[in-house]
């Protein structure tokens, strides 16, 4: 089915015929496009959730380093010697020593407006290491390993929080994969059935085309175009709906303190890949539907 042998007037003909069939079966086309839009939206929404969970994980990775507190009985000099031991722990990317003094100063400058927290005794702070991890998903194991290092009294890590986002990302991925597979098949099936109606409508025209010597591929192309146009239309509708939906959800999330930890990726950073994926998926569904209809029902 190469289009190369066709002139522009032929190709224009294929598309106008495809478009007119689409409108002839307004209701079926509407249903087929609607299902495809739903498929794309669900795919898009779960992918965007995964993207945001991932971005939040990255942020946690950068901002919420693990703090390893040194045993009070060790002097600062002794504490500094732990650095090499900590670096040997699996999954540790880097460590930075922070003395009592430095911890106090950092604390005081953070609460600079509050005289109560100035001139604190450094003795109430502990010597500590800021530990950066290579893979945040191994936080729990790394925390345990760090606690085993002699001289480390205590390790402070946001294990639950990062676990939560990893779970969210994985669930989003699994749900979207499953739903995409199911809805993809449903969309293809509905588009195929819409195009089957067109065959039925056009059986006389098809017979006449064969009588006057139209090639099989010439007869098939308008149906492929019909599926293609439905897929593209569904992709465009889904894109704008996704845009609006994303705006609504992110507005809700960012206005809520509970969700302040979530790193929201603005839609403007993602519109191009989203549009590209939607258009490609729409074309695959639409053309897939027409090709399956042609194979099953069009006896030319």
């Amino acid at each position, binding site marked *: 089915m190469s289009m190369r042998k066709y*002139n522009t*007037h*032929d190709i224009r*003909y294929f598309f106008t015929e495809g478009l007119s069939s689409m409108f002839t079966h307004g209701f079926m086309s509407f249903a087929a496009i609607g299902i495809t839009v739903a498929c794309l939206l669900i795919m898009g929404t779960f992918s965007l959730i995964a993207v945001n969970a991932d971005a939040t994980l990255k942020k946690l990775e950068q901002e919420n380093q693990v703090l390893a507190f040194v045993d009070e009985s060790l002097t600062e000099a002794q504490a500094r010697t732990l650095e090499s031991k900590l670096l040997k722990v699996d999954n540790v990317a880097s460590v930075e020593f922070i003395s009592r003094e430095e911890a106090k100063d950092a604390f005081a400058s953070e609460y600079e407006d509050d005289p109560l927290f100035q001139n604190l005794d450094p003795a109430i702070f502990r010597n500590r290491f800021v530990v950066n991890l290579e893979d945040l998903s191994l936080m729990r194991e790394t925390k345990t390993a760090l606690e085993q290092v002699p001289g480390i009294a205590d390790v402070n890590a946001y294990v639950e929080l990062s676990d939560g986002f990893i779970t969210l990302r994985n669930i989003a991925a699994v749900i979207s994969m499953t739903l995409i597979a199911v809805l993809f098949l449903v969309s293809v099936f509905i588009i195929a059935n819409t195009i089957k109606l067109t065959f039925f409508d056009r059986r*006389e025209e098809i017979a006449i085309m*064969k009588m006057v*010597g139209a090639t*099989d591929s*010439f*007869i098939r192309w308008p149906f492929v175009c019909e599926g293609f146009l439905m897929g593209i239309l569904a992709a465009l509708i889904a894109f704008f709906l996704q845009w609006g939906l994303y705006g609504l959800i992110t507005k809700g999330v960012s206005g809520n303190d509970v969700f302040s930890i979530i790193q929201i990726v603005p839609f403007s950073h993602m519109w191009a890949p989203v549009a590209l994926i939607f258009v490609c998926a729409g074309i695959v569904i639409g053309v897939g539907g027409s090709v399956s209809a042609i194979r099953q029902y069009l006896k030319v």
Partner: protein
Amino acid sequence: MIRLKNVYKEYRNGTHALNGLSLEIQDGEFVFLVGPSGSGKSTVIKVLTGEVIPTEGQVMVNGFSLVNIAEWQIPYLRRTLGIVFQDFRLIDKKTVYDNMVFAMRAVGASPREIKKRIGYVLKLVGLENKASRLPDELSGGEQQRVAIARALLNNPSTIIADEPTGNLDPARSLEIMTLLKRINELGTTVLVVTHERDLVNRFSERVVMLEKGRVIGDGVGKYGVNVHA
């Protein structure tokens, strides 16, 4: 040129529609194909258009061998033929003009060719004033003239018509036959299947008579005179 040699056709249900039929039609001839119902006339037409593949024998139509023709070649064979049926086969929701456009587009003609050719064929069949009518707004005879005009669009070397006057009254039938004869005089080979003895006998043309899938008579003006159905 059309040549059938010892052609047999057995349909899937076991009916022997053609039984060793041989027939040759030269370029530029006008031929009536007659015979009783069930004698195989339509089967011959279907063999010539590639709709039915013969079980045995040789068939050549305008340079295509129909026994071992490749599927993809059939459209190109059909472009050398103008096919006309009893039931006109026009698209009801398209005007006469758009029916013509549809048939030419189907073979990839350009808009310019389409415009030029449609005017010519409509004039040839005398319907240039009715181009914007829908088929329903025409008489049966006029509808058949549209179908003949459409058959001529791609400038075929041969017109093949299966009972083109079957749905028409005698006066309209004579008009259609006269039109086909005029097209023949312009150089197109014409093969017409018909039942109508009186009509055939108003022309002095070659008549091929079939019975039980074989040619039982072939000559000029014989139908109803020497050979009885």
